């Protein structure tokens, strides 16, 4: 196995003429792995708004953070993540500054 590491030109396996530059495979948006954490964030955000559960809104924010951290492609994923973030923040705002002030704060 180590013989191929020899620098003798006769054994040199390199072929510069055959070199091909790297072509990045573009993934269609449908094939992208499902953003589960973003989906869960939206679910919790909606639950937090509907049931006035503070914990739900905070958990939604946490899952939004996870979705942001796992964002691979900046342009395509940012829209979905920002959508989930809006829901979570809306839930939090509703819970804290809502028309019926919760007795806890």
């Amino acid at each position: 196995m180590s013989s191929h590491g020899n620098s003798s030109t006769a054994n040199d396996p390199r072929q510069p003429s055959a070199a091909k530059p790297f072509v990045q495979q573009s993934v269609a948006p449908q094939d992208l792995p499902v953003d589960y954490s973003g989906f869960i964030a939206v679910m919790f955000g909606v639950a937090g708004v509907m049931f006035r559960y503070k914990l739900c809104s905070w958990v939604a924010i946490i899952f939004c953070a996870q979705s942001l951290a796992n964002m691979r492609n900046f342009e395509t994923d940012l829209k979905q993540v920002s959508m989930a973030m809006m829901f979570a923040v809306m839930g939090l705002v509703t819970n804290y500054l809502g028309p019926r002030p919760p007795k806890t704060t």
Partner: protein
Amino acid sequence: MENGPCYSLLHLLALLSLLSIFLSHLSRFHVLADSHFEGFDADGEDDDESLIHNTLPLRSSPLTQSDPDPEPTPDPTSQDPDANQYSEPPSRPSSSSDLPKPSSTSFEYWDEDEFEGLPVEQPPLETPKIPENATPDDPSSDPKTAPKPIAATSPKSYTVEIVCGSFLIVFAINYFTGKRENENIALAWAVKFASKDSIFDKNFSLLGVGDGDDSPLLLKEGQNVFKFHASGRRYCQGLLATMELKSRHDLISRMYNLVVPCSDEISFEVYMNDDAMDHLVFAVAKKKAAKWMQKEIRDLQRFANMVSPPSGRKWVAEELAVISESKEVAGDLITEVVLEQVFGEKAFEKFGKGFISIHFSDQQPGTHKKMLLFKFALPDANSMADMTRLVALVPYYIDLVGRYRLSTQARSKTEITRMKIAQEAHREEQNARQEALQRKKAERKKLLEEAESKLGAEAIKRKEAKERARQMKKSMPRVKMTRAH
């Protein structure tokens, strides 16, 4: 994007609800402000006093310092000037000096009030109590919505906020540390195996993911996925190494990986030239993984079977299993060198810890048919040298497979099986195409029928007449006509 319109609708909804919340918030403040005036114009003195007790201590202390200021308020006769006073809050300090000193009785009264209202910090807490008692249905619904029990007199608990806020802070810290850790591992691998005078530099002329000499070696596709490309070697078009590391940057995945074990992996894909690879379907993996591969991966399933260790020669370690089309091919690909270096009993104990699988095939599903796949586990950043022998397998096997030619017997067998499977695949394709055509025809018919049924009865009659005329024309002999000049 398909989700576009849905998301824009949700966007609108979110904005609208935010607006409504803020509007109601504003209106709530407005209501509170009005209550001051209401309370002051109220009938009983008690209402005045209660509101004064509540509102005055809540207001800033300058109020209590200027004694004469609130004095007129308990006096019912002097409501008007007081109303004026309260209607102009900014001018309160100045108005206090303008007002004449009241009688001693009201002064004493105010002193009592002062000492009543000031030291005890209960008025602010009492205010939530009062509306609470006034609206008995609210506390009953509150325990249902708020999971944490809140005592009115005890300090307000911020458990949820503290816990979640600290989790978010830890999450952010972990994001940056995890990101750096992953980058360090990837860079350590690149330094060991892809930098100058390393094994890949000696084997490939073009390294990295860009153009030219100064191209970056690694492509970062997410905080835990790194890609390395190499090209310019005999027998193959190129090599793509993908490092999939643990999600160290994501705290939730990290906690999940404490329960479900995960490891850093690197997988090499070597795209062989068309003329460089003969009919080969071959795989080596640990026993469980090999069984799974033989069942799940399509080309292994169709072409290859598990190969039992042949007698009379050295074979791979006990933990490994070999899948191949024929025993001959398996024997030819597992050479003495390989056994001695990696796959033999002794060598595997020492160096084979990071080995996951190899899979060579000229019938790979996907765009590239002739590919060699290697999968290894990555050691941590400081012990990259443990992987040297495994990585050395890659160029060795490129050359071995590139040079290898099947014997005529084996070749004929493989040819037969491949012809069969190619025919089957062809037939399947034809069937699929026919089904698609039939479906289209049926859909067109349905559309036509629906369109016809929509039209009125007259239209149907007209259509039928037309069709009859057309058929008559067809059945009648064609008579040619020319124009007379």
